[in-house]
């Protein structure tokens, strides 16, 4: 037919029609629609005509046109499943190497998938125990000073906003106000235990589902100086005695009455507490504190609202904006924005500052999900690749099946069933791997340990089985489509030998993809490792070697110091307020001596006279602090070079000695100038203005310099001394270097994760490559033998067989390396201060490693073939 119009109706719509329509009605209907299509083409143009055609195909989907489901066919499929399983099983057993490669590859990647699934299930099970969890919302706030706009939202808000919402807003049914900072040593009679808790108002128990074992939920937290203990805390303090109504003393200061006992907080709660104090107490204790109700004091109070089942979030946001607009003028230069967040999204939501407990954060979930997806995809590619490669051997079977009467659907069914069998075998192995990997995964980052249980539950098992089914279908779909297209006549005639190679470009692309991913992951891991090493060995500007930092936890420093000094291993002891270089900051407003209008928040630490020599801080000029008694007035300060620069003091440090700095109103004389050092974590900006102030009574840490061949033993000795002096608090001490290492736990965790996944990706890619090499060499066995007979050398043959694969790996390297370098150079590293420079070394190492593994795979197989006796191969013909 030469007159067939070039423009034809959309293919899929035609197929859809053919699919649902009864065969006896089909041709006529198709013709009618075509006729209309041609008419519309003339009058309305191609687009409209296509649209009308599509609409019409759906319009004709009627009772009388739709073909009845053919039960016989379904029945046949069911009968055939037994046969499919049998033949699939045989084929799996016959090709042991390929099956093993597929099962191992899928198992390895699926174990990552299983981890991801259990991680997601754990994360989304958080806070679901609250009866009204979907109706609870939290108020988040954003602080903006002048134009510094890009600030994150905080999970907290101000007490002033909380009160305004509680008193003037009509939409929320209940408003729970919580505040951190309630906790300390709780004493009853002779017994003292440290307890952590929260301040809370009386709506606590009506918003959240924290059932009271004893006490009245409506007024347990109403009156000042009421406290509610968890069952566990009550048991610790009272044993089996009745706790309710008893008076307990917090921090040897205020007496509280126990008004309720609450069930222990479930692990799946984002907020954790051992006791709750009535927030009304603060109305008495903080009566004279003007800051308590300040609009910009938004760092400690949490507001949770129980909303009606239906409410208008937009309208509520307008109300919040109105509140901000009304209150913002009360604080100069500051804009605070309020926002509603659903409680269900706290655990897996965006990372906010001031969270009430550790959260998972969406970033980690996305990164992990992305990496798992890539690894699983890679394993599925292996399956596809190897199955299609083997099509030569299977195509006869398909041909016979089709001749006997199998339809396309039956062949597809057979291959999908085969893939599902493989994926279920892989699931068993993956599950064992999952159980083995679980503890390592949790210990990767300390906060994960607290957040996740990763327990096996029925729901989890159902998800796993569903996952295996999905993987089976995903991996088997392409081979199924490929095999079902095979033309029975051609195959049986024996002219199919070339057919299997038609998809060669696709298979090459899959190999390149797998190796690109592997190389990217390896290089990224190596780059991260380099950064990590760089930060670990970073020159902070002072010495941290063999220094043990002990948290005093309220103990008298002098007593501990005296006891410790008796140990021979202790070489020196100093006092400090905080630990620098691990990511903590203390700030204090300091006035510029040259310009009193100019005031600046400067980072500081309080130290004693031993601190500077003990930590090898380098004094450029002046001297160390003079020893003062605890009651003496603070008069001296030691500054770093940046302070001189910032305040336009003389460049020469010796000339700045004696200048007076006004620190929170106190006039302090500069007695020394020290060299700049890294006050914040090493990956934060350097060159921060820093001062040291002298105070022994504000010290919170004891810095103990040790000289010992057996540090763990010394540590144990110090712990014994601590236990003797303080029976309440556990010994908390860390070596300075360990503490710095810990402050980089985020980086080290992502490094470990990327490393593990890179390893898996390489394993899977190598397995796939091995399979492909085995297949290629096997199919070219005869060719190789003839070449050998003609005089080809073994080396030449190995080169001949391996060349193609190395070209593919080369392409992968050419894609992967620039991509990785671009990502780190342009996107990641510019955001991080003091990073190590990117070297070519990492990329070269990654390529070398991958090439070596590939060489082993290719070399071993090709050599085996090249060494084979050609006579053995050729005599079979």
């Amino acid at each position, binding site marked *: *037919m030469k*007159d*067939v119009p070039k423009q*034809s109706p959309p293919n899929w719509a035609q197929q859809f029609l053919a699919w649902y329509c009864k065969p006896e*009605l089909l*041709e*006529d*209907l*198709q*013709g*009618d629609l*075509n*006729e*209309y299509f*041609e008419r519309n083409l003339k009058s309305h143009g191609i687009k409209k005509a296509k649209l009308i055609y599509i609409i*019409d195909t759906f*319009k*004709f989907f*009627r009772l*009388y046109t739709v073909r009845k489901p053919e039960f016989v066919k379904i029945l046949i499929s069911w009968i055939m499943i037994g046969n499919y399983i049998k033949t699939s099983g045989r084929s799996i057993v016959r090709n042991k190497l390929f099956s093993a490669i597929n099962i191992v590859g899928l198992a390895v990647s699926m174990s990552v998938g299983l981890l991801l699934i259990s991680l997601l299930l754990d994360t989304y099970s958080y806070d679901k125990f609250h009866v009204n969890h979907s109706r609870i919302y939290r108020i988040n706030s954003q602080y903006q000073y002048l134009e510094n706009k890009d600030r994150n939202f905080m999970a907290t808000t101000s007490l002033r906003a909380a009160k305004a919402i509680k008193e003037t807003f009509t939409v929320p049914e209940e408003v729970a106000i919580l505040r951190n900072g309630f906790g300390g040593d709780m004493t009853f009679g002779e017994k003292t235990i440290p307890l952590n808790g929260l301040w809370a108002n009386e709506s606590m128990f009506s918003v959240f589902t924290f059932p009271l074992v004893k006490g009245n939920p409506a007024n347990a937290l109403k009156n000042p100086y009421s406290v509610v203990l968890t069952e566990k805390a009550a048991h610790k303090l009272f044993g089996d005695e009745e706790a309710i109504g008893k008076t307990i003393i917090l921090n040897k200061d205020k007496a509280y009455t126990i008004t309720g006992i609450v069930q222990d907080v479930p692990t799946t709660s984002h907020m954790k507490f051992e006791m709750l104090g009535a927030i009304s107490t603060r109305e008495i204790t903080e009566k004279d504190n003007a800051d308590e109700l300040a609009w910009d004091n938004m760092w400690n109070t949490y507001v949770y609202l129980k909303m009606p089942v239906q409410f208008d979030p937009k309208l509520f946001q307008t109300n919040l904006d109105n509140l901000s607009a009304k209150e913002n003028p009360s604080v100069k230069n500051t804009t605070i924005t309020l926002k509603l967040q659903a409680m269900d999204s706290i655990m897996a939501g965006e990372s906010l500052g001031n969270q009430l407990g550790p959260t998972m954060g969406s970033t980690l979930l996305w990164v992990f999900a992305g990496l798992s997806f890539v690894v699983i995809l890679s394993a599925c590619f292996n399956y596809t690749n190897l199955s299609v490669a083997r099509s030569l051997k299977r195509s006869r079977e398909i041909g016979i099946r089709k001749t006997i009467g199998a339809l396309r659907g039956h062949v597809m069914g057979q291959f999908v069933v085969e893939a599902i069998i493989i994926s279920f075998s892989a699931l068993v192995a993956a599950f064992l791997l999952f159980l083995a990997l679980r503890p390592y995964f949790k210990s990767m980052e300390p906060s994960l340990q607290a957040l996740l249980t990763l327990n096996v539950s029925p729901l989890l098992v159902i998800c796993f089985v569903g996952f295996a089914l999905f993987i089976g279908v995903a991996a088997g779909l392409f081979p199924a489509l490929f095999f079902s297209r095979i033309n029975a006549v051609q195959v049986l005639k024996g002219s199919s030998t070339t057919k299997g190679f038609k998809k060669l470009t696709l298979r090459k692309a899959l190999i390149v993809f797998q190796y690109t991913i592997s190389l990217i992951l390896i290089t990224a891991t190596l780059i991260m490792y380099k950064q990590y090493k760089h930060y670990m060995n970073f020159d902070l500007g002072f010495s941290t070697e063999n220094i043990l930092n002990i948290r005093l936890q309220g103990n008298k420093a002098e007593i501990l110091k005296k006891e410790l000094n008796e140990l021979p291993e202790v070489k020196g002891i100093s006092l400090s307020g905080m630990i620098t270089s691990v990511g903590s900051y203390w700030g204090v407003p300091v006035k510029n001596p040259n310009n009193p209008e100019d005031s600046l928040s400067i980072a500081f630490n309080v130290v004693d006279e031993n601190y500077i020599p003990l930590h090898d801080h380098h004094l450029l000029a002046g001297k160390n602090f003079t020893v003062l008694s605890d009651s003496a007035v603070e008069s001296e300060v030691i500054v770093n070079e940046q302070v001189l620069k910032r305040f336009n003091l003389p460049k020469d440090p010796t000339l700045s000695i004696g200048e007076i700095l006004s620190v929170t109103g106190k006039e302090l004389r500069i007695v020394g100038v020290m060299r700049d050092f890294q006050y914040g974590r090493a990956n934060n900006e350097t060159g921060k203005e820093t001062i040291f102030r002298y105070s022994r009574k504000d010290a919170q840490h004891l810095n103990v310099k040790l000289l010992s061949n057996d540090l763990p033993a010394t540590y144990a000795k110090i712990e014994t001394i601590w236990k003797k002096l303080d029976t309440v608090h556990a010994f908390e001490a860390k070596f300075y270097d360990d503490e710095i290492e810990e402050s980089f736990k985020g980086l080290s965790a992502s490094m470990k994760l990327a490393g593990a996944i890179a390893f898996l990706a390489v394993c899977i890619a190598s397995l796939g490559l091995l399979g492909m090499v085995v297949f290629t060499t096997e199919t070219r066995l005869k060719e190789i033998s003839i070449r050998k007979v003609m005089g080809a050398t073994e080396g030449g043959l190995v080169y001949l067989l391996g060349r193609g694969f190395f070209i593919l790996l080369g392409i992968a390297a050419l894609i992967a390396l620039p991509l990785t370098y671009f990502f780190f150079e342009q996107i990641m590293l510019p955001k991080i201060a003091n990073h190590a420079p990117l070297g070519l070394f990492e990329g070269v190492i990654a390529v070398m490693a991958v090439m070596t593994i590939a060489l082993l795979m290719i070399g071993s197989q090709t050599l085996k073939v090249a060494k084979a006796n050609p006579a053995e191969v050729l005599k079979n013909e």
Partner: protein
Amino acid sequence: MKGSNLGEFEELVLLTIAALMSDAYSVGICDELERQTGRTVKLGVVHAVLNRLEEKGFVKSKLGEATQTRGGKRKRYYSITSAGKAGLLKSKEVRDNLWNMIPNLSLNKI
């Protein structure tokens, strides 16, 4: 008796098939109906009616020859059966009887 009665639209379609003689296929019927009644006639409706008429035994159909139009698909030609003819005559008879019952007077008054 359900199934042997003719609906209004069914009757129109049946009449059109009879009128078009050997050229009665779905799209043709559709066009002819549009020309005669002046209202838009949807192909889907005609198709459904044809299908129903065939089930009732009023029409029979056979596939024609393939042509170059319609994407090479054959047309299904409909022709009226004797049952169809009887149905049409019956309904005409009912109408004629009713017409005859109306005195000229009462119509002219309107």
